[in-house]
């Protein structure tokens, strides 16, 4: 205990330089923790935009170029699959549910003369509850035409179950409003209307143009098996379809955002490194200044390990004080930075509407930053402390 008060006394004696060292640590910890929080918020935003549709395989017409990256603009091609191909996929998928998706667009009138082109998705009424959840209303039935409207569309035009809309001149009743779904590997109905397959083919007159087939595989273990089965059956002679599963796509996004978080933590670490160099410097100077004092202490019976402890305590006190202040600051800075960054990333779009940054991982980053700050301070203090402990008492006393 006496060593701790020694360390405190020494720091107080040079309060200005101690303060400056603490400021360095404060800024370093605040930087690393706020950037960590920022990374976490960006991750959260993306996770919020992307809907994890579980164990889903999406089969689309094979594009000449472009990989399986779901956001690749090269794969945004308006190609379709024929019903023969859909049947093949159904057979290959075996017991798992294969859901063919019709996708088109038409001019929709929302009443009061408001019109606009809207994506129209046609699905087998039996498949709709498997794929989509309702916010309000009921699912339509094959013989009882009704449309489901995406949540953003409903919000924009004030639609609710029972509203009447006109799709390409044909009247249709809104049966239900879909729950928000976000970016998904398969379909994105937030801005669209969903109608039963029968109504779709009757309206558009097309029968053979499926934009994609979604296979819901209940069992993660079976995903690769089903993918292989579809690949073997359809892509035998030449590539006809591209097969992507939701895990793959989420993994790709996760990789990118993990790297961004690591990068942000890393650049936060730079400031902390500079702060650690500062502590190393100050402690080093303190040891040099106090050589004769150390000599006196050693000669009256203070042990090496105790000298080491005094100096380590000094570094630790600087580290703990700086980290505590830095941790508190970073909660505020991290929050402000996250709000600003999300504002920039989603400017002018509907992405992230009503999205609240910050969650429990923020606390984790603050703790991490503080631990890192204390750790680097102790590390920076170690060499000077070790050097002080190694001094030979007699020579040290003689030191002017």
């Amino acid at each position: 205990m006496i060593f701790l008060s020694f360390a405190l006394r020494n720091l107080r004696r040079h309060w200005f330089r101690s303060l400056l060292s603490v400021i360095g640590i404060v800024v370093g910890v605040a930087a690393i923790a706020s950037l960590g929080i920022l990374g976490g918020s960006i991750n959260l935003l993306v996770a919020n935009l992307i809907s994890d549709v579980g164990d889903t395989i999406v089969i689309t017409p094979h594009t000449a170029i472009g990989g399986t990256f779901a956001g690749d603009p090269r794969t945004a091609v308006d190609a379709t699959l024929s019903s023969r191909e859909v049947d093949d996929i159904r057979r290959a998928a075996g017991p798992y549910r294969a859901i063919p998706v019709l996708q088109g667009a038409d001019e929709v009138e929302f009443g009061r003369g408001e019109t606009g082109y809207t994506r129209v998705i046609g699905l087998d009424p039996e498949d709709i509850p498997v794929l989509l959840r309702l916010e309000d209303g009921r699912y339509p039935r094959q013989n009882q035409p009704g449309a489901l409207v995406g949540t953003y569309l409903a919000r924009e035009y004030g639609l609710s179950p029972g509203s009447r809309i006109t799709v390409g001149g044909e009247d249709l009743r809104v049966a239900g409003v879909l729950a928000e779904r976000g970016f998904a590997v398969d379909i994105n109905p937030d801005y669209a209307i969903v109608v039963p397959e029968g109504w779709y083919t009757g309206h558009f007159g097309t029968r053979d143009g499926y934009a994609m087939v979604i296979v819901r595989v209940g069992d993660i273990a079976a995903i690769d098996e089903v993918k292989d089965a579809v690949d073997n059956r359809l892509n035998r002679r030449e590539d006809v379809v591209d097969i992507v599963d939701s895990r793959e796509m989420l993994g790709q996004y996760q990789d990118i955002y993990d790297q961004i978080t690591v990068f942000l933590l890393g650049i936060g670490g730079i400031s902390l490194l500079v702060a650690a160099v500062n502590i190393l410097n100050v402690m080093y100077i303190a040891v040099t200044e106090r050589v004769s004092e150390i000599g006196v202490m050693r000669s009256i019976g203070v042990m090496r390990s105790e000298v080491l402890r005094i100096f380590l305590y000094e570094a630790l006190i600087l580290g703990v004080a700086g980290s505590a202040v830095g941790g508190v600051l970073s909660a505020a800075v991290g929050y402000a930075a996250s709000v600003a960054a999300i504002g920039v990333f989603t400017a002018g779009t509907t992405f992230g509407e009503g999205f609240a940054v910050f969650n429990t991982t923020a606390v984790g980053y603050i703790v991490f930053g503080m631990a890192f700050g204390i750790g680097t301070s102790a590390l920076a203090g170690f060499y000077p402390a070790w050097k002080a402990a190694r001094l030979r008492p007699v020579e040290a006393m003689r030191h002017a």
Partner: protein
Amino acid sequence: MRDRILVNLAVRNLRRHTVRSVLAMIGIVIGVLAIASLGILGASLSALVGGLVSDVSDTILVTPHVAVSSGDPFDPRNILASRISDRDVALIEKAAGPNRVIPMFRTAERLVVGDTSGYVTVYALHPDDIPFLLDAEAGRYPASASPGVMVGSLLAEDLDLSVGSRIGFANESVRVTGIAAERGMGIDINPDYAVIVTDARYPGEDPGMVVVKVGDPADIGEVKAAIDAQVNRRKEKVDVLDSREVLELYYETMDAISLFLLGIGAVSLFVASVSILNVMVISVTERTREIGLMRSIGAERRRVLVMFLFEALVLGVLGSIAGGVLSALVGYYASAAASGLLGGFVAPGGAAATGPAVAGYIAFGMVFGIAASLVAGLYPAWKAAQLNPIEALRYE
């Protein structure tokens, strides 16, 4: 040259305490390194995005009015198979006056090249319009009489196509007559991975969008208003966009990211300057008696001030030079990593910041580092200069 002595004194003082001088300098090195390489990284990201996006500032895009869109022009969810009627095209032509109106139809066809096959995006245009929208890198533009097609440069590169190659296109065998120059994503047409054909191939199809090339960019607002007034008179039938409006958002985002990266670099430099301040304060305290002695044998206050400022300056200059050299390397690697991460699937070429931009950021970082050291040295130097000679001599 009395200042020469002061420089020598400053250097001697720094040498006497090698370890602390080196440590203080390391702080500046890292700070300059951080600010310059993050600046370079930001510039490379901007260049990468700039390369992806083609700013067609003389272009107005007219598309069928979409009920709700996400607001992001490159969001695939906003691409709808919607059409503009012939009557509306005629109205647009009337509103656009002397400016060229280019109706365009977008679809997809199956392409077979050797072992590779699959769907590609197809743009169908009137043969007279194609030269107004695209530059030919090689070969000729497709003509209405021949069935030849033009392919985008990146598609040609990926599939190893050249002028005269035979490809399977929509179950026919056609010749590649020309290759369109690389262009990046524009709001109007993204030809790099597409096939461009004449509209004779799709008779009777209404265009999905209409591009208006405005001769004088100053007229853009006027033409937009005219189209809006002409076509959307009774109800909202088309959306009218111009490139600047759409891309502004992208440029703003990139600027914000660059600024953010520079800011984080500046934080490290701030910590480094606190470190210099610290070392200099300690140095002034230690040398109080020495300062008293100098003052009592006739050194002026100004001289003491300058001597300490020189010390800070030497630390700053040496640290900044080392940091500048290092940041050229680190910035290059960071940019390569970032463009590898982002550019892997969107831009095969990969883009980097230009030489002058890199040099600019390094110079900026170095100037910032030197300035930060000077500012940090100012208070200790002032404090030293203010010391009372007699009291300083007595200082224990």
